[in-house]
């Protein structure tokens, strides 16, 4: 046998070996793993009025939300949209809160307005009214448990930059699983923890965010959302959520403190 023959066989085998050996994308969090998913973080948006003399129902609901938050701290995000109700003016009322509330109520079969009114993952579930803290907690928990067991085909990594008294939310959004997504909106809400009881997540501003027309399974997209004025907000938190284009169904949410 010529000595060059075995050498040639070795080289050919090594070349063949270098071409094989694909490693499976088996990390459950990796968007390129077709079986990937993440736990759903549920967004609870409470429309309340705490102006004087506000009905105590609002306090019941806010206390119930506080209890719920301590129980499901890592699975839910809570925001308080304050709004004027009837003749009771709320000092934290924002016009964009009212616009969002109108859109949510308009999308529900029962279009009755009134505080307190809690929307769970957009219009996925709704709990309106609170006769006591216990009743409100039970109703909220029942509605939440129906949503909490789901997983989400979305993951995001939130960030922000500060620019001349404004906050610019930034997010890397990735589509998990096997299916593409179309007409997605990412919106942002700025909340503040006030030095008052039951005022841990008061909305101080929001952005309708950005729309993505299409995102393939396993694909990521980096977004820079429209700025939100800080207006001297302290103890702030930024909440980002993925919704459908109309913003009525929330599919994932995430919060991060502003330092």
């Amino acid at each position, binding site marked *: 046998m010529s000595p060059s023959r075995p050498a040639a066989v*070795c080289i050919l085998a090594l070349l063949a070996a270098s071409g094989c050996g694909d490693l499976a994308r088996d990390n459950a969090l990796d968007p390129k793993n077709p079986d990937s998913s993440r736990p759903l973080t549920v967004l609870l948006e409470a429309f309340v009025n705490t102006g004087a003399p506000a009905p105590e129902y609002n306090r019941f609901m806010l206390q119930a939300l506080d209890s719920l938050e301590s129980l499901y701290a890592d699975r839910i995000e809570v925001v308080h949209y304050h709004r004027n109700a009837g003749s009771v003016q709320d000092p934290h009322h924002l016009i964009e809160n009212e616009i969002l509330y109108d859109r949510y109520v308009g999308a529900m079969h029962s279009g009755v307005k009134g505080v307190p009114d809690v929307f769970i993952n957009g219009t996925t579930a709704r709990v309106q009214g609170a006769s006591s803290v216990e009743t409100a907690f039970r109703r909220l928990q029942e509605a939440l448990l129906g949503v909490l067991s789901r997983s989400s085909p979305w993951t995001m*990594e939130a960030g922000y930059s500060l620019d001349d008294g404004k906050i610019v939310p930034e997010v890397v959004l990735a589509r998990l699983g096997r299916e593409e997504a179309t007409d997605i909106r990412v919106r942002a809400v700025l909340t503040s923890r006030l030095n008052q009881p039951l005022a841990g997540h008061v909305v101080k501003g929001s952005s309708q965010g950005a729309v993505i027309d299409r995102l393939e399974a396993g694909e990521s997209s980096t977004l820079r959302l429209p700025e939100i004025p800080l207006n001297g907000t302290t103890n702030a938190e930024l909440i980002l959520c993925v919704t459908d284009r109309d913003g009525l169904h929330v599919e994932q949410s995430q919060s991060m403190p502003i330092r």
Partner: protein
Amino acid sequence: MNAPLEKMTSLLASNIHYQLTGSGRPVDRMRLHRYPAAVCLAGTSVLAASALAAHLAFLDRRSEYRDAARLEDFDPLHERAERTLRLRNGLSIASGIGLVLSGFFLYQNSHADEITACEPRVVPYAFAWGGRTWTAGIHVSF
């Protein structure tokens, strides 16, 4: 000059030199060709050890990928683990080929053609068919 003839010349020269001068030593046999089995075995051992090291490195890197949680980490960690996997596979296949070659060389060396400078050993009692006659007798070589 081809290799067998060169070997024969060398063997013959050694024996003539021994006969004429008495120095050196008589050479009664010489293999025509020897394969580098020892070198091949040593190389195979190095390749196998490298394949084992690459496998251990691959296990570490696969764990790093599986433990990743940040979006920016998945692709680089997966690529790194995959590169190590390919290296391990290449080294494993090379080790396997080396092992087969070593076995082949050892077999070839144990069955290699020889040039002999003495009469072949014969059994003390021998017989042979000469075409028309049978011959039998005792043959002793000194």
